[in-house]
């Protein structure tokens, strides 16, 4: 048997390889990754690792020796460039071929590189890999001037880490607030105030026209005509799913790799998980592509078990967190638009939760320094039942008491294994 092959050695791919071994003692498991490093977690790259508080070893999904000990064949530093779904072979960039019986694609996303003049200048950084973070860290010294381009989660976290090192920061975003599209302008406005209070100069409703400099960046020029002198810049303006290798494979691509609730692609025996997978979520009844840590970890595990012959729908409620200064921001659920935003607590009071409601049902919740309510809201989101907004607003009401009995605790892949 050719065995199980996983393309992509980020968190989703690593979680899948770990699970394949955990649930099958004799499966042949091969993990292919483009980076040289063993699988690591990316969240600290914009936070603890970037600030120099964590060594690389703290990032690793498992210790370096784990893969050999677990008889997982690893091919790190190898790029898969084509999948032959008929011959059941993965072609690598170095012309090697890896045959498979069951395949998981967990290639993740890459940073968008908009064609802005000067983006290739030295000192214009991006952030995805540990190498990117190490390079950026070398720039961070008190009094230097940085421009952060894009105030998504990565841009916001990088700005916070830069301020932690007393770097002067100007942050530019095309929206009216940070994360306006994702969290809405009310929550975004609170984030804008947070960054301003820590000394970030924010520029909204504007975008970069050009990076200027002779070999190395010296200034950022915006479309509105600002010229901002700087010592370096960090560009975080979104990502795109890595699907190039699917050309000719017959696998359906639609905003990433389209998979069903079992993480199966349109081609038998080939699965996808993590950032690259546009997964049919049974709770929300539609395809969702989630680019966060919990989804990568849990969906990778779930896909692995279905590769081994189980049929377990992945139905975890998407959840992520972001740490900026002293604010711990957590989000659970999935929403695009919302009819009503229900606030629990005060937006500028340091701690609150905000519920994104449609038709009286909670689609998602964001909490600032309020992880408890975010976690307690997850069963409410999963239940898809209307919830009384007055009860949500009332901070004396324990959200657990709003669950419609019998309460269905959020099922986890590990607990369903033993069910």
């Amino acid at each position, binding site marked *: 048997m050719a065995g199980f092959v996983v393309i992509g050695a980020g968190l989703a791919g690593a979680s899948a390889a770990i699970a394949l071994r955990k649930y099958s003692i004799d499966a042949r498991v091969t993990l292919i990754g483009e980076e040289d490093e063993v699988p690591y977690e990316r969240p600290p790259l914009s936070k603890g690792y970037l600030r120099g508080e964590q060594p690389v070893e703290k990032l690793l999904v498992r210790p370096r020796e784990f893969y050999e000990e677990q008889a997982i064949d690893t091919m790190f530093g190898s790029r898969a460039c084509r999948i032959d779904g008929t011959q059941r072979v993965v072609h690598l960039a170095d012309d090697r071929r890896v045959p498979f019986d069951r395949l998981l694609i967990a290639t993740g996303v890459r940073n968008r590189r908009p064609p802005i003049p000067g983006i290739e200048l030295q000192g214009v950084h991006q952030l995805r890999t540990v190498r990117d973070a190490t390079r950026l860290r070398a720039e961070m010294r008190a009094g230097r001037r940085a421009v952060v381009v894009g105030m998504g989660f990565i841009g916001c976290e990088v700005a916070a880490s830069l301020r932690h090192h007393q770097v002067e920061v100007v942050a530019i975003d095309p929206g009216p607030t940070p994360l306006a599209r994702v969290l809405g302008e009310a929550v975004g406005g609170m984030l804008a105030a947070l960054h301003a209070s820590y000394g970030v100069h924010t520029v909204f409703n504007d975008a970069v026209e050009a990076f200027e400099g002779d070999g190395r960046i010296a200034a950022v020029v915006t479309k509105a005509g600002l010229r901002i002198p700087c010592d370096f810049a960090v560009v975080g303006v979104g990502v795109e799913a890595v699907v190039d290798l699917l050309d000719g494979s017959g696998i359906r691509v639609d905003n990433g790799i389209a998979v069903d609730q079992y993480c199966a692609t349109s081609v038998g025996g080939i699965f996808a998980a993590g950032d690259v997978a546009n997964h049919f979520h049974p709770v929300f009844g539609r395809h969702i592509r989630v680019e966060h840590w919990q989804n990568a*970890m849990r969906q990778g595990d779930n896909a692995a078990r279905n590769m081994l012959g189980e049929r377990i729908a992945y139905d975890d409620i998407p*959840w992520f*967190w972001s740490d900026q200064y002293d604010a*711990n921001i957590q989000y659970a659920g999935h929403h695009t638009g919302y009819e009503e935003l229900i606030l629990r607590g005060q937006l500028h009071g340091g701690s609150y939760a905000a519920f994104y409601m449609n038709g009286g049902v909670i689609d998602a919740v964001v909490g600032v320094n309020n992880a*408890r309510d975010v976690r*307690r809201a997850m069963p409410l989101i999963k239940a898809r039942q209307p919830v009384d907004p007055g009860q949500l607003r009332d901070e004396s009401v324990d959200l*657990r008491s709003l669950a419609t009995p019998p309460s269905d605790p959020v099922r986890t892949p*590990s607990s369903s294994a033993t069910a």
Partner: protein
Amino acid sequence: MAEVFVPAIKIADVPANGMVVVDVNGARIAVANVQGQFYAFDDECTHEQCSLAEGDLAGTTVTCMCHGAEFDVRSGAVLAPPAVVPVKVYRTRVDGDALHIEV
């Protein structure tokens, strides 16, 4: 050295289906009251050192508020990631109105 049971807290001070933190010889230990049964375990989550007693208790499962790791308070076993390492548990004994923990 033999491990000994140390009086840690009055049982009346551990709310039903709730958790409190006690200091036993300098160690921060969480005590959970599950329907009159008392379970003791390290308060520090094995993932990123958040307080488990500040988490949620549902039956015998404690959920860490920071990143959602879940442990079985009876055995310390990991029920849900991101924690990988079980949390250390301690034996308990009720003596009169006091809960004793073996450390």
